[in-house]
């Protein structure tokens, strides 16, 4: 295979990996704070994207024309709105269930995902059909043979990674981060330390959900398309990435996300069988990896002793 092609596939894989990673970081956060899988995470992303789209339409309606300004507003509003939604979900659905078996949370967020998805399909104008999201970043690009490097891709990649680093810093370096980790270990004792449990959960869900919206904005800038069920598979892959990287570890989510994207790219481009098998290949490798490293690549350390 020639270099240009490889370079192109690498960039493709990086972009895909970034999106997966961003989704996976969200899963890791929720898992980190409440030990729950939030299966509606992918659909939160969809809501983020549709919020962004609506804001975009609104802004163009009032005549705003500067694309970069639009983009910034769109992204901020989407993140704020979905962050708020995430906190609200935590309040109404997650915290009331914290005494119940953890699987109930899984089921309830699963159902919530359906509610979110179906609401868009049914109540968003023409929600059942895919929509076009305009390119808001300048479309400068440069080509070398089969390889086209686009400025906007590079920018997105950078912002995305920056975002992840930011979240990582918040978790590792701030009091909030410590509170999040304490809450995940032992809710009651955390409260006895003076930590406001509910607040920590709200904030975590807000951050995780805002991150989903952010991932959504990146997604839609990259693919220029949105549809009501885009979050479904993205959620499943994000979860897989978080797990294969090792839950509770943000670097694990990154590793998992890029790994998954890489596997899919290899499956589609470099292996002799049909490209449709790429998911079979990627998930197959994931199963094998988990068999070898049962708590993910950067797995959690064993903390239990007898």
């Amino acid at each position: 295979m020639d270099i240009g092609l490889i370079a192109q596939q690498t960039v493709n894989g990086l972009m895909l990996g970034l999106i997966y990673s961003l989704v996976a970081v969200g899963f890791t956060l929720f898992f980190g704070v409440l030990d729950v899988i939030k299966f509606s995470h992918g659909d939160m992303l969809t809501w983020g994207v549709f919020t962004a789209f609506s804001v975009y339409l609104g802004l163009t309606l009032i005549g705003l024309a500067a694309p970069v300004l639009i983009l910034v507003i769109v992204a901020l509003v989407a993140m704020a709105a979905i962050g708020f939604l995430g906190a609200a979900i935590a309040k109404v659905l997650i915290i009331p269930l914290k005494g119940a078996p953890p699987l109930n949370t899984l089921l309830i967020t699963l159902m919530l995902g359906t509610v979110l998805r179906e609401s868009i399909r049914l109540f968003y104008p023409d929600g059942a059909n895919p929509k076009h999201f305009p390119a808001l970043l300048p479309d400068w690009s440069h080509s070398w043979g089969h390889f086209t490097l686009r400025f906007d891709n590079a920018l997105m990649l950078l912002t995305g990674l920056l975002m992840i680093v930011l979240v990582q810093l918040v978790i590792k370096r701030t009091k909030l981060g410590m509170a999040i980790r304490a809450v995940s270990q032992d809710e009651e004792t955390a409260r006895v330390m003076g930590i406001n449990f509910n607040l920590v959960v709200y904030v975590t869900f807000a951050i995780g959900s805002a991150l989903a919206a952010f991932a959504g904005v990146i997604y839609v800038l990259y693919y220029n398309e949105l549809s009501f069920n885009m979050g479904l598979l993205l959620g499943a892959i994000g979860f897989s990435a978080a797990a294969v990287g090792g839950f509770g570890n943000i670097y694990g989510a990154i590793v998992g996300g890029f790994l998954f994207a890489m596997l899919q790219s290899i499956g589609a481009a470099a292996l002799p069988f049909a490209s449709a098998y790429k998911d079979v290949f990627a998930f197959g490798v994931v199963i094998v990896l988990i068999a070898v490293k049962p708590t993910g690549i950067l797995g959690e350390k064993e903390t239990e002793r007898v």
Partner: protein
Amino acid sequence: MEKKVSALSVRGIYTGYDRADVIEDLSLEVEEGTITCLLGNNGSGKTTVIRSILGLTPPRAGRILFHDADITHLATHKIVRLGLASIPEGRKVFPGLTVEENLRLGGYQEDDKEVLLARMQKVYALFPRLEERSTQLAGTMSGGEQAMVSIGRGLMGAPKLLIIDEPSLGLSPLLVKENFRIIQSIREQNITVFLVEQNVRQTLAISDYGYVLSKGRVVAQGSADTLRDNEEVRQAYFG
């Protein structure tokens, strides 16, 4: 006569878990600057009293006052922020956090890094083992080492009232003695102590006042000396 100030006042509380009440019509006072102890058999409800005070299992009826502020239905973190810290029963450390992180969480209310560092040094001086193992995950420490973490974490705060639930559980005799010395020194820093312990002889030796709990009710109370001489208490706890 010196004026007595009540740091904690529990008035006629009823507390239970799912069904029956474990605590029935229980009242007690903890005077400021004293060590007050709560004695009782296993399962008599001592921990439940503490949970009620901390708002973890709020009482069904009755009132709890902390320095005259009604904390009966306050959220735990708010109660704690009023100046009430605790060393919980059963070495409840954060297993997945390191020893140092556990200690830092004990000083969660304190923002001044210097102060925290000084306190941590003090804890390390008391329990050198913790300094040695500051990066070990607390969950992998031995039983007694976890007790040290839990006590050290309690010392990291600067409360007005410290509630301690069976601190010497699983500590070696040497450390048990050390532990009682620490509690005494806490009082000397003008921190009120409310203590639950099974080690009755030593507890009464350092306490000012005590309550004896049986099946969720106070069955005896008095100054430490009177309790020590109480025949029933002797039988049950000294053998």
